[in-house]
């Protein structure tokens, strides 16, 4: 059973007049991310919709902005989904956390932070979910530069040499030239790509 988006939008607007909403296809875009928790709380507790179950939280990179997408369902009324989305800029990617409203957001928000770098403010455990803490960069953003695993870098050479492991000369030299140029060994497009 589907819930009509217009209906939800109208209901939110009558009860929460300060919240600015916009319809983006079948979803509701909340213009100001700060409004997200109150909208979610309203939808969760409004007797008409009772969207008590947050199914999925995920991020997405649209080059100019980042997006956080929420899919809400109602377990009590067996209806859904209602899609909410908020948009933030890459420099200031801060979205209020939904964990106080729905606990199911806990691990998924950590995942979105890990892969897209969206900071969920008020999250009780704001760490990376999959990668280790020292990992730099957000790998699912479209501009993430992945390392080239076949070219050693200066840090690798130093690590190996302190442990007394011989490194072939050409690898050493390559690492040095990379270091001198101030570059990382990054996976690049091939010289003669296949069609």
């Amino acid at each position, binding site marked *: 059973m589907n819930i009509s988006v217009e209906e939800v939008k109208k209901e939110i607007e009558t009860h929460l007049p300060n919240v600015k909403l916009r319809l983006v296809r079948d979803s509701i875009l909340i213009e100001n991310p700060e409004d997200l928790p109150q909208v979610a709380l309203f939808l969760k507790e409004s007797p008409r919709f009772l969207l008590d*179950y947050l199914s999925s939280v*995920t991020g997405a990179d649209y080059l100019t902005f980042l997006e956080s997408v929420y899919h809400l369902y109602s377990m009590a009324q067996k209806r859904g989904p209602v899609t909410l989305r908020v948009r933030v800029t890459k420099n200031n990617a801060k979205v209020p956390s939904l964990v106080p409203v729905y606990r199911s957001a806990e691990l998924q928000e950590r*995942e979105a932070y890990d892969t897209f770098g969206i900071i969920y403010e008020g999250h009780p455990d704001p760490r990376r979910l999959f990668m280790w803490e020292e990992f730099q960069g957000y790998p699912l953003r479209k501009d993430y530069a992945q390392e080239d695993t076949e070219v050693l870098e200066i840090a690798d050479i130093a690590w190996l040499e302190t442990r007394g492991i011989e490194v072939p000369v050409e690898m050493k030299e390559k690492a040095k030239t990379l270091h001198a140029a101030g570059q990382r060994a990054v996976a690049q497009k091939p010289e003669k790509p296949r069609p």
Partner: protein
Amino acid sequence: MTNIVEIKNTDLAQTLEINFGPQHPSTHGVFRMTVQLEGEKICGLRPIFGYLHRNHEQIAENLPYAAIMPYTDRLDYVNALSNNFGYALTIEKLAGIEVPERAEYIRVIMAELARVVNHIAVIGFMLNDLGAFFTPLLYAFRERERILNLFEEITGSRLMNNYFRVGGVKRDLTGENLAGIQKIVSRFPAFLEEFEALLTKNEILCMRCQNIGVLSAKTATNAGITGPVLRASGVNYDIRKVDGYSVYNRFDFKIPLGEKGDVYDRFYVRILEIRESLKILDQALSTIPPGEIMNKKSLPMLKMPRNFKPPVGEAYGRVESPKGELGFYVVSDGTPQPWRYHVRAPSLINLTVLEEMCLGQKIADAIIILGSIDIVLGETDR
């Protein structure tokens, strides 16, 4: 909310911190958790993820739509067919492709067989964790092998089936295959009886499992728990009934519900679910219609996967996988590769409440609570 955050660095000299995994025989793969103990009692637990994070989403965003199908097999590798189902359903939603009736029936049959395989394996592993070392697992795997043999005959592979296609299925079921499935379905209850005689009312099992790891219905709903774990807590929510996707609304089946939401209920709900699945299989096998197995429109896509470009848009599709709600969120930008591809993994989200279930229990119970949640690391970490 705060108790899940930081393990309290208590001043009590009695607290002991134990690390489980990632190499541990009973963490079902490379799951890792650090447990804080007071004597034998758990006072804190923190799961650590990512030891099998193999970048499913990144790889899929660089592949054509058809080539993602074999990767979905490797999400939840115990029942690859449910993952295939979810992905196919989402892309069909995205591109507006309809599926012929016979293909729908075949999908249901295969997905239900996969559910049986999954539940039987999970029960075996859970009993392994309980200390019934290997014997129940051997019986469970004996039955599993028979179904896997069938999978091999039909789909070509034992585990990584890669059987569903957008708009249908890869290969038709022959009469021989159907007879084989019917044989397994008709023989399975006898095995279940034997299995249950061995287990269900066993005193040791009851003592170890009852009132352990209780999860209340309210917490379960709020934490987004789905699947047998949710139903064991007494919440009647099964996507096969709620959404009625594919042809599930044509079959008559019940949703087994637990009462307390403890480990025993989860174990028993799974056994009952196998029986319901067998019921669905029986009905599907007797009513499967003849006809096409592939939508004509998507046939060219099979030969040239690169030419399949769904219109710009997004879709969220979900199925009831044996672990819970398996959701796929796909954004298309009109090119052969998806712009964004996300998997809502039930095994990951079901772990949200692991600490809450374990607090106050004994250390040995943490293992069976984890076993009863039924995680597969390929899906948890992706």
